[in-house]
């Protein structure tokens, strides 16, 4: 290029390129309609957006469990999300329970930015992060931003057995839930029980126990993040003040309710 472009030339040239960029040559709707019909005909799990190729990073054992479960699963699922009414959480009922298996080390690490305190986590997340008085301060706090999710990690705690995540006794996830944007999903089989239990202040919560269930996060576009797929154990879910809470710990229902009731 023989000459130097000033800012005006640059902007004008960019706009000029814009007017020349071509769109598709023909009406896209027939092709899109065909893709919609094709996807509708597929079983429910493919609509979760799980792509076999992208499953590769998951620990092999879990992949086997997942694929085995999916292959055995007839195309039938109850979405319980509306019954549950926990903002940001989708629960699918699946006819097979995934086999419980010791998890490999793959999930011992957490994603997001490490926060040094609840105050810093609250600042990063843009809402007041709370911790359960019954467990005290968490050992680690992680803040993810797209979408915003805060994870409190309690490493081994006396009196608390470890969870499906190695070296971790309790995990708490907090996020601003919205009914039309699922942040996390769960697929539960017949071996997993789901019941409504009130917290000590009357807040409705839901208790998932029994056989482990499949757990995954969705990204900010609502697409499943396959690398977050794992088996999760006993879990309590509730919503307070516009924030959705998820407590995962291998404890009794009463103990989970006691921990959840101690949030401050």
């Amino acid at each position, binding site marked *: *290029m023989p000459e130097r*472009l000033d800012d005006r*030339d640059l902007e004008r040239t960019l706009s000029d*390129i814009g*007017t020349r960029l071509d769109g598709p040559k023909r009406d*896209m709707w027939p092709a*899109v*309609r065909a*893709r919609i019909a094709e996807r509708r005909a597929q079983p429910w799990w493919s609509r979760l957006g799980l792509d076999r190729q992208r499953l590769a990073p998951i620990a092999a054992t879990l992949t086997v469990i997942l694929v085995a479960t999916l292959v055995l699963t007839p195309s039938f699922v109850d979405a319980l999300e509306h019954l549950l009414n926990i903002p940001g959480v989708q629960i699918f009922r699946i006819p097979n329970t995934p086999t419980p298996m010791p998890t490999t080390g793959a999930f011992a690490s957490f994603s997001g930015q490490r926060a040094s305190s609840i105050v810093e986590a609250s600042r990063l997340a843009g809402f007041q992060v709370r911790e359960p008085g019954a467990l005290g301060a968490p050992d680690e706090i992680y803040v993810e931003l797209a979408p915003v999710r805060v994870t409190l990690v309690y490493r081994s705690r006396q009196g608390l057995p470890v969870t499906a995540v190695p070296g971790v006794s309790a995990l708490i996830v907090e996020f601003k839930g919205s009914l039309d944007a699922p942040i996390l999903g769960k697929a539960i089989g017949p071996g997993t029980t789901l019941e409504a239990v009130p917290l000590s202040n009357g807040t409705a919560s839901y208790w998932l126990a029994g056989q482990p269930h499949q757990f995954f996060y969705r990204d*900010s576009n609502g697409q499943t993040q396959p690398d977050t797929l794992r088996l999760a154990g006993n879990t309590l879910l509730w919503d307070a003040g516009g924030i959705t809470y998820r407590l995962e710990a291998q404890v009794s229902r009463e103990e989970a309710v006691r921990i959840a009731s101690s949030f401050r």
Partner: protein
Amino acid sequence: MEGRPAEDAVLVERAQHGDTEAYGELVRRYQALATRTAYVITGLSTDAEDAAQDGFTKAYFALGRFRTGAPFRPWLLRIVANEAKNRRKAAGRRPTVDLSVAEDRPSGDTALSPEEAALASERRTFVLGALGKLREEDRLVIAYRYFMQLSEAEMADALGVARGTVKSRLSRAIARLREITAGEVRADA
């Protein structure tokens, strides 16, 4: 509504209630925008059309989660851009912004003399080449602003960032583009 095209919100609501043809109207309305968005990321028009179609398909199944009253256009573009990024990552290559696409179209600048037209064309080639060297997010913010004329609010929604971030991101992207073009002038001189 006589003679006037239906609002996006009306079409979205009809589509949410199972009216597939209403969604078809949205597809026709935004297919050019979606394809250009994907194109800026994939750099190949065949990939871009494919990504746009997949984006429309995913958006259709996500309509249940679409927030009533929110603008449809940036929401759709975000899904399409995501689809295009996945595709490019899977292909494992850098996009080559293919000039032929931009040059095929008849130009509106008939008032230009042959020399001016040749210069303008040369500039486009040059700037497109420089765009191809930018990072994906810089290219996307420039494309939203200059190729698609999105408003700041729409850009923020489409990029999934705060409104205040859009301005700084855009000026940073332009500064980088300027650096690249200036560098090439020096290199050529």
